[in-house]
């Protein structure tokens, strides 16, 4: 907080302790609303694959328009005119599994992620400002979305829970209503409770109490919003959810497919416009095309540059990309309110916070952009040796600006990559 806010606050304390001090948060982040509805993409989907890809078989060998599709990306070759591949981008951050946390935030130590900045702008128009998804319970360091406070957002890992959240039946509505109503009365009386306190505290303490009441007020607002949405019926969909959630690691690919299906439904029903999806990996041994792989997924990712292991690692990678393809097909087939294919107004960022899983190297991250009305069709190889090399954060700046977030910098990146995409 800057000192001028504090001054205003202190001058106002005699009138009211509960000043809305955090209203300027948005301005502090350098972000303001500025919308051009015609050209603006409406939805953002970010998908991160925890154990990454084999770089040499993910990135095409050639650049520009006429690249030959790479073995791992082959399942989505049909989208080449609607997608852009970037090689050579990363955050210049630290390496290791823990470095994964930086994928969407640019910083391994916990900092706001790009999707949350976007959700700040478009989130108030839908039931869920944003949703964070995964398959089962991912490893502890697999985190993707972070709040402004640097807190990792919890992810939904069970399809049934996601389904219930999106298309909830009436059963727990009564309970939610009860909690909303009573929580409002829980919060209502707090100010009278501390009236006695206010007289005795020092000015620094008043500042702290101001912080407290601002937070209470913010939560009250959130409760009001939840009440509004609770009063509106949830969309009705017809989706054959399996009887049991495939959350065991052996069937993680099945879970991935269902999650993608539900994500497409969430976008089609306009339940949310910002989705992040973390595709985890453990040591499970996959069976692909009726062939049981020779080692666990995690150990394949540490392939030691052995040809046979790389081939199997790529098989898993292709399975992921194939499922991405299925998701894109649905976005292509479904129309938004203006009868445009959803894919035209949905930007899909696909990649990994892991560059080379074999050595836990978090540079040269696999990066793919699809849809969203951007100028596509090429493989851009970013020169990592350039005098002022481009960062993945530069790409995020372009994406965020497309959503109207007027940020000029993000995690050390300061120049957007509009010249590649607009």
């Amino acid at each position: 907080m800057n000192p001028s806010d504090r001054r205003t606050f202190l001058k106002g304390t005699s009138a009211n302790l509960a000043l809305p001090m955090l209203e300027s948060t948005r301005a502090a982040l350098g972000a303001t609303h500025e919308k051009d509805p015609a050209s603006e993409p409406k939805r953002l989907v970010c998908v991160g694959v925890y154990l990454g890809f084999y770089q040499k078989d993910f990135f095409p060998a050639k650049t520009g328009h006429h690249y030959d599709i790479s073995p791992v990306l082959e399942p989505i070759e049909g989208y080449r005119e609607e997608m852009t591949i970037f090689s050579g981008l990363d955050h210049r951050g630290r390496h290791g599994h823990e470095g994964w946390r930086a994928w969407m935030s640019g910083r391994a130590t916990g900092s706001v992620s790009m999707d949350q900045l976007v959700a700040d702008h478009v989130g108030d128009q839908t039931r869920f400002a944003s949703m964070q998804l995964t398959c089962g319970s991912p490893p502890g360091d697999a985190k993707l979305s972070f709040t402004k406070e640097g807190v990792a957002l919890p992810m939904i890992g069970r399809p049934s829970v996601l389904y219930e959240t999106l298309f909830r039946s009436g059963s727990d509505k009564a309970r939610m209503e009860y909690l909303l109503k009573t929580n409002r009365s829980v919060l209502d009386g707090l100010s009278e409770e501390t009236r006695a306190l206010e007289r005795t505290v020092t000015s620094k303490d008043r500042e702290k109490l101001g912080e407290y009441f601002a937070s209470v007020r913010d939560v009250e607002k959130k409760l009001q919003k939840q009440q509004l949405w609770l009063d509106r019926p949830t969309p009705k969909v017809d989706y054959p959810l399996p009887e049991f959630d495939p959350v065991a690691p052996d069937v993680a690919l099945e879970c991935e497919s269902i999650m993608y299906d539900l994500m497409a439904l969430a976008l089609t029903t306009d339940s949310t416009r910002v989705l992040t999806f973390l595709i985890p990996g453990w040591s499970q041994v996959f069976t692909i095309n009726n062939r049981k792989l020779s080692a666990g997924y995690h150990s394949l990712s540490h392939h030691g540059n052995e040809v046979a292991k790389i081939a199997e690692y790529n098989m898993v990678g292709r399975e992921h990309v194939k499922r991405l393809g299925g998701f894109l097909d649905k976005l292509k087939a479904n129309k938004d309110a203006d009868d445009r294919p959803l894919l035209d107004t949905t930007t899909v960022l696909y990649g990994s916070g892991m560059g080379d899983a074999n050595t836990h190297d978090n540079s040269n991250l696999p990066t793919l952009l699809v849809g969203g009305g951007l100028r596509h069709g090429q493989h851009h190889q970013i020169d990592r040796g350039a005098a002022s090399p481009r960062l993945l954060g530069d790409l995020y700046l372009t994406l965020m600006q497309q959503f109207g977030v007027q940020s000029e910098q993000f995690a050390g990146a300061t120049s957007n990559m509009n010249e590649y995409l607009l």
Partner: protein
Amino acid sequence: MFNNSKNHRRISAVVDEATSPVPGDSWPRPLPFASVFVFSLLITAPLCSAQTIPADTIRFLNRYCADCHTGDEPEGEVRFDLQPIQWERAESVDLWQRVYDVVSQQEMPPRDAEQPATADRKQMVDWLHSQLTEHAKPGGTTIRRLNREEYENSIRDLFDMPEFKAPDAFPADDSQYGFDNIGEGLVLSPPLMAQYLELATLVADSILPPDNGPEVANPQLYRIGATWLAESAWTTVEGDRFRISSSKKDNAHTAGWPIRFSAPKSGIYRLTIDASSLQTDKMFYARQDQPFRLSIYAKQKTEQTYDWFDRLRHLADFDVQTDQEPPQKFTCEIELIKGEAFGLRWSNGPVHSNGFHRERLKQDRRLHAAMLGIGKDPRGMSQQQYYQETLDLLKGELDLENPRLDEELVGILFGGIAHKNGPKLMVDWFVHEEVRRYGPALDITDVSIEGPLRLIEDDEMRTRKARTAKFLGERAAGATDREYAEHVLRRFLPRAFRRSVGDEQVQVYVDLAMREIESSNARIEDGLHVAVRRALVSPNFLYRSPRPGRLDDFDLASRLSYFLTSSPPDDQLFELAALGKLSNAEIRKSQTLRLLSSDRSSNFVKSFTGQWLGTRRLHDIMPDPRLFFYYQQHRDSMTSEVEMLFEEILKENHSLDTFLDPGFSYRHKSLNKIYGDELDGNEMQRVEFQRGGRHGGILGLSAVMMATANGVDTHPVQRGVWLLENVFGTPTPEPPDNVPAIAPDTTGTTTMRSLVEKHRADQSCAHCHDKIDPLGMVLENFDPVGRWRDNYPIYVQPNDGEALKEEFYANTGKGTKPGPPIDSVGVLIDGTRLNDVTDLKRYLVENIDIFSRCLTGKLLVYATGRPLNFGDRRVIDKIVGDVKDQENGFRDLIVAIVQSEAFAVK
């Protein structure tokens, strides 16, 4: 201009004049400008108090400050007026302390204004220093929100819920002045408030569960089959059957569990399994006649877990007979808790441990020779390939004289075992493939489960019921809802708010509960549910120390209890507070000793050392594997060493110099490579050694050396800053923003000393770095994991594109080669020359007050949750002196702190 400390700090670094504020004394730490007050101050006329304010000072203020800080709209709302200084006003002290900070740190006058001469500035600073030392009183804690740990402990104690844990997504607490329990730093944000409200609901639900009516069993039949079992390393799906071929002890390796079933409710289920034994003529192992035992365990969830069977609930055993071919059907009733799955294990098979593989190779020279003959790295091969290749070699000529056959076999590396510095032998692959094909193995051919046949009350429900009963207490005969609610809340609220609660406040909560009961025609539990939620988001629960001035008994109880146990006052402390006994210094002492000897003091040990000595940082550091191959075990042992050393000094009341040169430590065999010990066994061990050596004490702890480096290289500046802040107690200001850090030259062409000596070239840098760098150089003998070294390492790079293989790991010593020798000579600001860390230790032991003052200051900051001010200086001097007059014991020091004036005021 007064309120932007950051900008001015930048300025201070480029000011030409280098003035040391008061020689050897930049204590207390400069205050950041957390808030700014508007009020008037005196520049007194020489006539009325010429003795207090020298003419020089007034001249200084007039010449350098008056332009901006007078008139109706003074800069930064700081105005100097011709009024007498009212030292009794806290605001006066606060403001003059700020003036002291900005003038002594050369943040004022601003860079673009006229600068005072060194002597003038010194005179001003000296005057301020003496005035503040005389007039400032200890105190000034901003109300403290409970930090995460304190919050968790408070909920646990309040509701008797030892298992309570805030979710991972709970926002982290910010640290200030080195600790995460400082009032100013503990911010409350909307997401945190939302979490508090959510957790309040969770806790209230647990104590006062909603009435969902009676639950019905509604049993279902779940056909699981054999192929819908999760596979692990030693299990396989063979056609339509599930094969278990090992009896290792963890389920991640040897169990199957259903992929598509977990108990929908806690209850009794009927489990039916078809199983058979597999033993063929081609089997390597002798045929077994005794039945194969199939053991069933309760597994917490369907997702991947890494449990040992002996820690799981054992549900049933089936004996699969070995004399019959067709699968045998087994059925039994098992008890499952909601959400649980069941794990299947073969508990008496021949393949049961890693030692078993080692034995197999020792016994079977031909197999050993064949595996050596494969001659290439097994990575990249499949299990089947490896098996086949071994078989092929077994058919041919084998070199049974290979000397490697007599070498010792060592550790287990990702499944295989290895020769010392030699090839990895995937004997487990071979054995697994062998038993998978030919047995012995246990086959599951069908699984189904039906239920719940009837519901059970699980432990969780029982615990909940007991908690509810305890929370509510007995309802007096004929008591109305209102009377009952009041009875409950009268007991609950004082413990929640950690002090006595007046009638009026109790009635507010009773009214809240009654409104809910009356408006919704609800149960008393539902009314109290709302009241409990309110209490848990109330500032009276979330914050402590709100009342200014001297702490009353209740606030003292909280301060003492959170200081030494990170928990709210227990029954005894609360009662003493209620009786008004804690103001008595002797009772405070006996309570301090009681808390220190309780198990809960480990919270203090962990939290304080984790921050003071930086062990919390170890989670964020991953040493370069070429330097040291680092596991969780290393981190845990390093952290334990710090905590156990600290704990012994505390509990045995060792003298304060023990921190620096103890002659003993607690170590683990995993740290042998660091300390050169030859320890064995799995426990931490107390080791004794000669005093005065390299390792030992906080200046030679692996954890501290690691926390003050980055895992790859060391940096004298980082360690120097750490020493000044945490051992000498004379922290330096933040570095200017626009100066890049020195990057160590890892190729070895430039020495570290010549790199840091660049600091001296620039006078503005030299002002601080003269203190920092020579100190930091003294610790250069410790590498980034705290190992002693005489040379800098040069990292060996693997060839481009090649994977980092084991040979580059530090275990082999091939990851680095020796570079330039370490130059660890340092000269302290007082001219003392130190050759290496042993000299530094000796210096500090001889001048123990330096360290005692520093540690006392740290403890006082941690205990009171505020930065130190000039008033605390007197307090610390007295504490340090008094304790030294006794035996200079550490526990005595803590007692003296608790009894001090600074501890007893807000």
